[in-house]
């Protein structure tokens, strides 16, 4: 293996074009604030030419950077009447990005050290992760889970709704009170079942919005016992007092 070959590093080891640029800058011992663009562009393109296999997905990012370098060089070649202020330097934005990226890389090192330390110490929270099948595994659900359940329901009710001629008027406030009183009585309600029980589509919609409002106000919480299971809505403990007073 000759020197030329041994120097070659695979492009895959670089996270992206900024990573490669930083590597070249370090290798040439260049000041980031004063990058000789022509030199670094040549190095950069050399680098791209030297690698054997082409991965188109990643290639685009690297080519975009090459284009940017050439653009910066062209900006610098333009004849100007006045000497440029430092903040007008066409290289400035790239230099800022490189500096930012460099800080992130330093942070990566710090975090990696901390990770190594932490991997060797054990806390009880590390032990509770996998629960055996069948056990209650409460997952507080996100908005997306709720919306997904809601759409399943809507699909189920699509046809039947045609039969309804005139729905009764329901206000958000009424519905919210109704939900809270049901919750106080039964402690929890099944999200899908409850919406399914609503007489009309409109009422179901209102009930859904009410639930979202209540969750947002942190008066109730939505919990899924297991992935893909039904979502249950509980009154929050700390909310009990508040609701009774309202």
């Amino acid at each position, binding site marked *: 293996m000759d020197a030329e070959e041994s120097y070659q590093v695979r492009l895959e080891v670089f*996270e*992206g*074009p*900024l*990573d490669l640029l930083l590597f070249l800058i*370090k290798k040439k011992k260049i000041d980031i604030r004063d990058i000789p663009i022509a030199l670094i562009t040549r190095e950069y393109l050399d680098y791209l030419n030297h690698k054997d296999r082409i991965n188109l997905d*990643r290639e685009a*990012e690297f080519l975009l*950077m090459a284009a940017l370098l050439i653009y910066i060089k062209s900006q610098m070649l333009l004849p100007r009447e006045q000497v440029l202020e430092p903040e007008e330097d066409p290289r400035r934005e790239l230099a800022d*990005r490189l500096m*930012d*990226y*460099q*800080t*992130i*890389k*330093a*942070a*990566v*090192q*710090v*975090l*990696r050290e*901390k*990770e*190594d*330390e*932490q*991997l*060797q*110490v*054990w*806390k*009880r*929270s590390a*032990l*509770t992760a996998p629960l055996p099948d069948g056990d209650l595994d409460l997952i507080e659900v*996100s908005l997306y889970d709720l919306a997904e359940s809601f759409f399943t329901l809507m699909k189920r009710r699509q046809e039947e709704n045609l039969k309804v001629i005139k729905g009764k008027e329901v206000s958000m406030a009424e519905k919210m009170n109704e939900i809270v009183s049901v919750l106080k009585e039964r402690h929890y309600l099944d999200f899908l079942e409850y919406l399914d029980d609503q007489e009309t589509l409109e009422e179901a919609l209102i009930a859904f919005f009410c639930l979202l409002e209540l969750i947002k106000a942190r008066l109730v919480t939505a919990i899924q016992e297991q992935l893909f299971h039904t979502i249950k809505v509980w009154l929050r403990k700390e909310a009990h007092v508040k609701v009774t007073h309202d």
Partner: protein
Amino acid sequence: MTEKLKEIIESLIFISVEPLTLEKMKEVLPDDPEQDIVRAVQDLAAGYAAGGGAIHIVQTAGGYVFSTKPDFDPYVRRLLQIERKSKLSHQALETLSAIAYHQPVTLPEISTIRGCDSTYALHSLLEKKLIKIVGRKEAPGRPLLYRTTDKFLVYFGLNSLEDLPKEDELKKLMEEENA
């Protein structure tokens, strides 16, 4: 009195799976003044640190937990039948750093900082619950905003985000390395 308080707190920490916060302790001990509780926890932690035992109390994500010392890692792993805890990939860690230092931040912003597409890494971090969605940015396309979680703090043994080295400290670190 303080001895008793220390022992109460010790048992609370012992039984807690998540880091036990001062707020939780205050809930359990409504009659004890906050500074007494704080002093008791600190005494307790110092006692463990000085005692030379296998366990100590660490402060992480704003709360207190018991933790084993690194020396016993091989034995604990043998007990739990865990070969090795997996580390984050370089890509994931870099994405996580970008989020930690720029949060709240959107995916396009992260990709710009790293100079490459970060979609995959972002999703794996979300799955690991090291980051979370905190809303949308009022910008074209209303992209989602991301933040690090408490689990992130626990994972790296940090008490709060303040524990991360400041940006100028990082710059100094780099200069030392470049020199």
